[in-house]
């Protein structure tokens, strides 16, 4: 910089201005960037880099041991035209998203409203209801689930009181996905906490006014609670939908990584994992990952586009 301005014989004032700008940047901002450096390295090296690489790999055949081989769009073509397992796994994940998200949100909202009555020991209950989310999809939970939903499990013990002989829910193809949906609904902690915060924001005087006008509790819920809560519902729905699409661990642990019985718990992500680390088709697995990303992106975009018709923000 300095050399160039000397050669071109720029006026002294400009030189001083340039150098002082640089000095200022260096003095003020450099330490900031220096402190950000570890994050930048992580972001570019461990996140952006692999994302770009996986996009490239999705157009190749790559088995980890030999170099990737360019195959154009073959992976994507095969997926949509000649891979029944792709559609089977897509169906399982779609079923999971469509049923687990609304059920979980409804359940979370219900519990949040119960807890929002200013009862004693609220922090304790909040913590207790949040607990299942912390336990998450651990091995212990998977084993517990097998105990509950097996042939001689808790559910069938309960049903036998009424003389009903239940099947082994967790290993029967028609029901196994539902046991995982119930597991997801059971982990309603984080949307519940957010709903609880949202409910606190609703001014009490609205309810008082409604009561004076003789509105029933149900009417109050429909006309006051729900509309004022829509931003929170929207937020929770987006987050939970993305979570549901990404869901992997419960099915992986409960089915031992197989997606059985008869692929009834073969989640999309589980199929992706099988292709990548079971059959070493990294190229095909990368393509699967990009299709999932596109799908989640489309769902989210659709939600945002329609949100203006049903989400009410404070003006």
């Amino acid at each position: 910089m300095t050399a160039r301005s000397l050669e071109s014989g720029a006026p002294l004032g400009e030189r001083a201005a340039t150098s002082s700008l640089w000095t200022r940047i260096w003095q003020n901002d450099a330490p900031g960037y220096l402190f950000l450096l570890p994050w930048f390295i992580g972001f570019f090296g461990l996140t952006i880099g692999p994302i770009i690489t996986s996009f490239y790999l999705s157009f190749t055949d790559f088995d980890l041991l030999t170099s990737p081989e360019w195959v154009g769009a073959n992976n994507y073509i095969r997926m949509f035209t000649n891979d029944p397992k792709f559609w089977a796994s897509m169906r399982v994940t779609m079923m999971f998203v469509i049923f687990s998200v609304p059920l979980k949100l409804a359940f979370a909202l219900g519990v949040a409203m119960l807890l929002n009555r200013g009862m004693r020991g609220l922090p304790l209950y909040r913590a207790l209801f949040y607990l299942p989310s912390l336990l998450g999809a651990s091995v212990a939970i998977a084993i517990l689930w097998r105990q509950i939903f097996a042939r001689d499990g808790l559910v069938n013990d309960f049903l036998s009181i009424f003389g009903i002989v239940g099947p082994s829910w967790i290993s029967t193809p028609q029901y196994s996905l539902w046991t995982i949906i119930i597991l997801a609904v059971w982990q309603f902690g984080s949307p519940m906490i957010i709903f609880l915060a949202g409910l606190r924001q609703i001014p009490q005087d609205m309810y008082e006014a409604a009561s004076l006008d003789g509105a029933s509790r149900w009417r109050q819920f429909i006309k006051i609670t729900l509309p004022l809560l829509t931003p929170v519902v929207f937020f929770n729905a987006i987050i939970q939908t993305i979570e549901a699409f990404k869901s992997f661990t419960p099915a992986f642990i409960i089915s031992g990584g197989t997606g059985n019985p008869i692929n009834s718990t073969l989640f999309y992500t589980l199929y992706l994992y099988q292709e990548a680390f079971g059959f070493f088709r990294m190229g095909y697995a990368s393509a699967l990952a990009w299709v999932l990303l596109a799908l989640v992106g489309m769902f989210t975009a659709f939600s945002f586009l329609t949100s203006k018709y049903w989400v009410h923000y404070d003006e």
Partner: protein
Amino acid sequence: MTIRTDRRKFLMGSSALAAAGAFGVMPSWAQAQSLRLIFWGGQGRADRTYGVTDLYKEASDTDVAGEFLAWNDYWAKLATQTAGGNAPDVIQMDYRFIVEYAQRGAIAPLDEYVGSALKLDDFDADQLEGGKVDGKLYGISLGANSVATLINTGAFEEAGIEPPTNAWTYDDLFEIGEAFNSANIRGGMKAISDSSYNEPSLDNWLRQRGKALYTAEGQLGFDETDAVEWYQLWAKLREAGVCVAPDDQALDTGPLETTMLVTGRAALMPSNSNQLVGYQALVQDKLDMCGYPRIAEGQGGGHYRKPSMFFSVAGSSASKEGAAEFLNFFVNDIEAGKILGVERGIPCAAAVRDAVAPTLDEANQIALNFVANLGDLLGDLPPPPPAAAGEVDLSLIRTLGQEVGFGAKTPEQAGAELVTGATDILNRA
């Protein structure tokens, strides 16, 4: 924000810190001799393995740093490390993957060390042969084993039924099944687990018919008729209540503790001879073993002495000779052999086998005797399966067997689909 550090001082300080960090790890690189080892297995196998590495450290001052994972996680990790050029020096290898790893140079041929670092004079010839790919030695067998049916002798005694021997047939299986149903012990215990989607059972049954799962060229070794008959056979066994119900069988997700033998739903289960030790630790009743059922009286040849697993040396290893010396110790040292027992199969070095045999406990003795006395059950070692065999097993054999079990497909449909699907997968790979 009143504390100010001069920038130059800060930079000097931090680079000194970084340098100190780098020097801090130097000594571990500079150590005389160290090797990395990776294997699959459970805690029991790890304890035995680390017993031997401790012994080796005393004997040779070489540090062997081991790492172990469950089978399912093992291959993902090994492939990732190999792709990153960071594979451990000594790699536990399976018959299923050895060709793939050898042909890609991921593991090194060991022929140049045979006779010097590796002494294999009294090593079983067939086990040595099993570790060869294209005529070169890529894996040292850690033990011979065979498929075997595990028998819960306590359950047989309780039901008052004579347990099967190596002579038994599928017809006997029907009879045992009926006997168990009329005895009705332990909440309706069945005779055998549903083995229709157990790959080794299908393999054994095909071999007795003079067929095979795969040919030497890596193609399918059976046709639709065979597959349909196999599913029909198991449909009959299921109908007669000889094997467990499909929704019970589906609870078996792989780990030992989820199997029908351990959960007490079946008295017989197809497995491997070296696994008796592992299962006995989980089952209260005494376990025994016999061969897989014969398709007809006197029909043999279904079994073979398989190298249960190998140790191979990574192609990228910087100390291949050191690794070969460790392999030599692992398979030839008598004391090492006593620690290892037959947990990885029957020792292949004659001297070790003779020294180890008298020291074994009962479960290990049963396994040793079984493999040593296969008699006419024994057939030739089949060629290593093609790379896609794992996918055929997971995507087709297991799923189709379940679909027939749950009534979603007929044996005829499943048989046809197995052949077309497997051909598809083999051609794609």
